[in-house]
C-alpha cells in the first residue's frame, strides 16, 4: 500500500533535482507530441537552441525578449508573495506603456535626460494605479482579485484600441491605425548593443533581492503573505501593506511596458505586451518567487520564444508551440512540487497487520 506523509527534510539540492527532472519530463512529453507531428524532436529542440543562442545577434534578441519578462516577473512575484493573485500584469504593462507614451508624444521638446525619467515615472504610476484599484477593494472588502485584475486587462486593451483608432491615430499614416513613432529623445539609448533596459533589469533584480530578504518592508510582505492574521496581531497595517505592495507590483509591470514601448517598439500599439503579462506568471512561479532565479528562468523562457520563431521558419511548426511547451513545463513542475512537500513510502500490509 502507498502511504504519503509530509516531509520537512527536503534539501535545496533535492528540490532542484526534482524540478529539473520535471522540466526534462515536460520536454520529453512535448517531444512525443512533436514526433506525432512528423518531426524529429531532437533536431527541433536543437534548432530552437540554435535559434536562441546560435549567434551574437540571436543572443541579443533573446535577451531583448527577456528584459520585459524579467521586470514583469519581479512585479508579479511581489504580488504572489502576498498570495495576491495578480493576473493583471498584461493590463498593467499596457497602462504603463500608455503613461510613458503620453509624455513621449506631448513633451517632444524635452531633453532625453528629463523626458525618459518622466516616462519611467509615469509608467510606474499608471501601472501601479491599475494594480492598486483591485488591491484597494481586496484589502477593504476581500473582493476577488483574480477576476478583478483580469477584467482590468480587457479594459486596458480596449483603452489602447480606442487611442490607436481614435485620438492618438497618426495623421501621417494615411489612415492606417497606428500611433506615431517616438522622437529620438524618447527612445532608450543603447549600451553594449542593447537598449539600457537590461541595466534596469539587472539593477531591479538586485534591489528586489535586498528588498524582500533584508528590509523591514519586505519582511512584512512575507509575513502578511503567510498569514494576514499574524501580521495583524503583530501590529502591521495589513490593508496598507496590500495596497502599496500591489502598487509596486503593478508599477514594475508598468515599467516593463515603458521599456518595451521606448526601447523596442519606439511607439505604442495594442500588441505591446505580446503575452508577456501571462508568461510572467509562469516564470515567477517557476522561480519560487526568488529574484535571482527569475533572471535565469526568464532568459530560458525568452530563449523558448525566440527559438519558437526560429522553428516556425525551419519546420513550419506554429509559434504557438512554444506557448504549449511553456504550459507543459509548468504543469510538470506544479505536479513535481508534490514530491518536494510529501514523501511516499510503500508499506507492507502483511507486516502492518502482524504488528497489530
Amino acid at each position, binding site marked *: 500500500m502507498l502511504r*504519503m*506523509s*509530509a516531509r520537512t527534510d527536503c534539501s535545496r539540492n533535492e528540490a532542484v533535482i526534482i524540478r529539473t527532472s520535471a522540466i526534462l519530463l515536460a520536454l520529453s512529453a512535448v517531444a512525443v507530441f512533436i514526433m506525432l507531428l512528423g518531426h524529429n524532436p531532437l533536431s527541433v529542440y536543437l534548432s530552437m537552441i540554435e535559434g536562441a543562442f546560435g549567434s551574437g545577434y540571436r543572443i541579443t534578441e533573446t535577451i531583448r525578449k527577456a528584459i520585459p519578462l524579467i521586470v514583469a516577473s519581479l512585479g508579479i512575484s511581489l504580488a504572489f508573495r502576498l498570495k495576491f*493573485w495578480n*493576473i493583471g500584469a498584461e493590463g498593467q504593462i499596457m497602462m504603463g506603456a500608455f503613461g510613458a507614451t503620453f509624455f513621449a508624444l506631448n513633451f517632444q521638446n524635452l531633453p532625453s535626460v528629463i523626458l525618459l525619467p518622466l516616462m519611467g515615472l509615469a509608467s510606474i504610476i499608471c501601472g501601479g494605479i491599475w494594480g492598486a484599484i483591485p488591491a484597494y*477593494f481586496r484589502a477593504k*472588502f*476581500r*473582493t*476577488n482579485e*483574480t*477576476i*478583478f485584475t*483580469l*477584467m*482590468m486587462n*480587457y*479594459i486596458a486593451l*480596449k*483603452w489602447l*484600441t*480606442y487611442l490607436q483608432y*481614435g485620438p492618438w491615430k497618426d495623421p501621417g499614416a494615411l489612415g492606417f491605425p497606428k500611433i506615431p513613432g517616438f522622437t529620438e529623445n524618447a527612445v532608450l539609448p543603447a549600451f553594449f548593443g542593447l537598449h539600457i533596459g537590461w541595466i534596469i533589469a539587472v539593477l531591479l533584480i538586485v534591489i528586489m533581492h535586498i528588498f524582500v530578504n533584508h528590509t523591514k518592508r519586505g519582511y512584512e510582505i512575507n509575513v502578511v503573505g503567510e498569514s494576514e492574521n499574524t501580521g495583524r496581531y503583530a501590529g502591521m497595517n495589513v490593508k496598507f501593506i496590500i495596497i502599496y505592495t500591489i502598487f509596486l507590483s503593478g508599477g514594475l509591470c508598468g515599467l516593463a511596458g515603458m521599456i518595451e514601448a521606448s526601447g523596442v517598439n519606439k511607439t505604442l500599439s495594442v500588441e505591446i505586451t505580446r503575452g508577456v503579462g*501571462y*508568461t510572467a*506568471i*509562469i516564470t515567477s*512561479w517557476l522561480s519560487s518567487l526568488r529574484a535571482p532565479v527569475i533572471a535565469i528562468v526568464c532568459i530560458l523562457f525568452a530563449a523558448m520564444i525566440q527559438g519558437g520563431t526560429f522553428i516556425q521558419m525551419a519546420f513550419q511548426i*506554429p509559434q*504557438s*508551440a*512554444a*506557448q*504549449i511547451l*511553456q*504550459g*507543459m513545463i*509548468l*504543469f510538470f513542475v*506544479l*505536479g513535481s*512540487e*508534490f514530491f518536494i*512537500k*510529501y514523501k511516499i513510502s510503500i508499506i507492507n500490509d502483511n507486516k502492518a497487520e502482524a504488528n497489530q
Partner: protein
Amino acid sequence: MDISFFAAAVVAGTPLLYAILGELITEKSGQLNLGVEGMMLMGAVIGFKMAIITGNPYLALLGAMAAGGFGAIIYAVLTVTFRANQVVSGLTLTIFGTGFASFMGQGLMGEIVPPDMKLFFADFKIPFLGDIPILGQIFFNQGILVYSGYLLTIIAGLYIYRTQIGLNLRAVGENTAAADAAGIHVSLYKYVHVIIGGVLCGLAGAYLSLVYIPSWQENVTAGRGWIAVALVIFCKWNPYRVMMGAFLFGGLDIIGFRIQKFDIHISQYIIDLLPYIVTIVILILVSVRKSHSGSAPASLGVSYFREER
C-alpha cells in the same frame, strides 16, 4: 427594445450558461478551476476542427466535450492527486489552452461551418410553449443547444439538491474531512465533477465557434470564461440562478449593436467595456454585501490532505 433583442440575449448568454454550470459543479466539489477560458478555447477549436473534418454535428460536439474534459483531467491530476496550488494550476490551464487553440486553429482561419450543420443548430419552435406570447418568442424559438442548456440547468439543480450523490458532493465541498470520515470517496468525487465541469466548458466553447460566430477566429472566447467564473459568485453557487446571470450578460454582450440602431451616440469602445465593468461592479457589490460569501463551498480552493488534519 424589441423582443428580438431578448431572444438574441438568450443566444449570446448560452455559452456563458454552459460555462457557469460547469464551473459551478466543479466548485461544489471544493475545486476552484480558473482554467475555464482555456477549456472553452480547447473545446471551441476541437469542436470546429471536427465539424470541418467530419461534417457531423454529434462528433463535433463530442470532440469539444472531450477536449474540455481533457483539460479538466490535467487540472484534476495536478490539484487533486498532486495537491498543487489550485489558482496557479487553473491559470496554467488557461495559458496552455490558449496556446493549444491557436496551435490547432492554424489554417482554420476563414473556414466556416458546413451549411447542413448550421441546419442542425438552427432555431425551431417548440409546440405549445413556442406559442406563448413574448416568452415563447424569447425562449422557445431557439436552437437545440439553447434548449439543452435549459434542460441541463434543471438537471444540475435536481442533481445537486435532490440526490444522494449531490448531497455527498456538497459535503465534499463544504467540509472535506467530515465527508472523508463519512466514507465518501473524496478524490473520486472531485475528479468526476472537475471533469463534468470541463466537459461543459468544452461545450460552451463549441457553441461559440459552431453556432454563435460560426467561423473560426483567434481567441473566440474573448474573456467569457473569466466572466463565467465571476458569475458563479453572482449566482451564489445556485444552479437555478445561472440562467438569470447568463442571459443578463448575454444582453450586455450584444447591447452595443442594438444601441447603434437607435442612433444613440455612445462610443463603441465604451459599450464594448460594459461586460467587463459590470463584472467588476458585481464582484465589488458581492464582497461589500458579504451576504453571498456565505454561500461559497467552505472548502473551496483548499487542497485536502488526509493526514494534515
